[in-house]
């Protein structure tokens, strides 16, 4: 008989569900905003909002950092301090705003969903990251702003017509309109 008892197989918990504020509804396919937005451009870098995919509760997008190909690339240093990262903010036409600083993220065990808008950046690195915005904007200009001091990207912003986001939300498709499971 082995000294070490066999362990049960490792399996993630099956009943975990990501909170509603952290992503789009899991039973929907999103609508697409048909534009990409250039938010910042310097002689060496650009920041792009791309892949805007919209649900009735919010939208996903890529925060893409592009480096000018003909420009020498700095040796890569992994930034561990928040100050080294690309700051992103979103402002609605009614003045409400959100940014990607982790101090604004809700505690995972909070029962109550946070007030929208909330910006949750799930991945972050030298090439940008992936972002979920909880909450839809009202009609009017939707402003994206960014700043990255260590990469010499000054405060920059660009506007998108929120109507494009709201129209895409209308086109999100419910996969199983009959909500009873099989």
């Amino acid at each position, binding site marked *: 008989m082995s000294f070490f008892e066999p362990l049960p197989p490792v*399996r*993630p918990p*099956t*009943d*975990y*569900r*990501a909170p509603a504020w*952290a*992503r*789009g509804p*899991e*039973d929907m*396919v*999103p*609508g*697409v*905003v*048909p*534009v*990409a937005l*250039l938010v910042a*451009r310097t002689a060496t870098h*650009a920041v*792009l909002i*791309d*892949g*805007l*995919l919209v649900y009735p509760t919010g939208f*996903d997008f890529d925060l893409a950092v*592009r*480096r*000018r*190909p*003909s*420009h*020498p*690339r*700095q*040796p890569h240093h992994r930034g561990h301090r928040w100050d080294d990262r690309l700051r992103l903010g979103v402002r609605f036409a009614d003045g409400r705003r959100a940014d990607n600083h982790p101090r604004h993220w809700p505690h995972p065990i909070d029962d109550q969903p946070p007030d929208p808008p909330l910006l949750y950046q*799930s*991945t972050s690195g030298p090439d940008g990251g*992936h972002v979920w915005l909880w909450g839809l904007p009202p009609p009017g200009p939707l402003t994206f702003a960014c700043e990255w001091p260590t990469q010499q990207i000054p405060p920059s912003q660009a506007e998108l017509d929120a109507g494009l986001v709201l129209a*895409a939300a209308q*086109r*999100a*498709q419910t*996969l*199983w309109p009959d909500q009873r*499971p*099989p």
Partner: protein
Amino acid sequence: MSASEPPELPEPEVEYRRPAWVEPPADLVPGIVPVELILARTPERAIGLTGIRAYPTGFGCTLHMRLREVIPGEQSNFGAFNMFGDGVDPAGEFADYFLRVGVGFADGRKATNLDHRRDLDEGPAPDPPTLWLVRWEGYDRLAWEVDVWVYGLPPPGPLAFVVEWPARHIPESRVEIDAGLVLAAAARAAPIWPDQPRR
């Protein structure tokens, strides 16, 4: 003779470009095709595809993997950790558990995740089209998003998106769009630095 060591030199700045078959060109804003497709749907799960981002060298899009309810005992997280295989050899005994994804061009050429190459940055350029799964993200078993990069633009005619997952009761399923939409969007891709000659 001096006993001192030479000073440590700073790392040189390098110009490094990943090859065109791995990712979109860095100096273009893509043209978007607002497709919102459901490639396959069973009572338990669905696979959607949205948001084609087109460039002169190829296009990206996002796959949406959806499970309606958690199925007790089922191990798969859509195989997303292993290019849709969860460690399954697509040529082996459990091949039916490998989720297949591909694109088909009107001239018969195709690219699938079965011929995914590991040495992304090495070797000669592959013949287009190729298909790479470049980002996958999910927090539980119900929903995963997977970004795809297809190197190479389709010729005019139908452009097919195809999935198959035998073990999960998804037969070969295909949705076609007009490749002209992708070609027109690729032509709309705009230079970020217009003063720079493109290579």
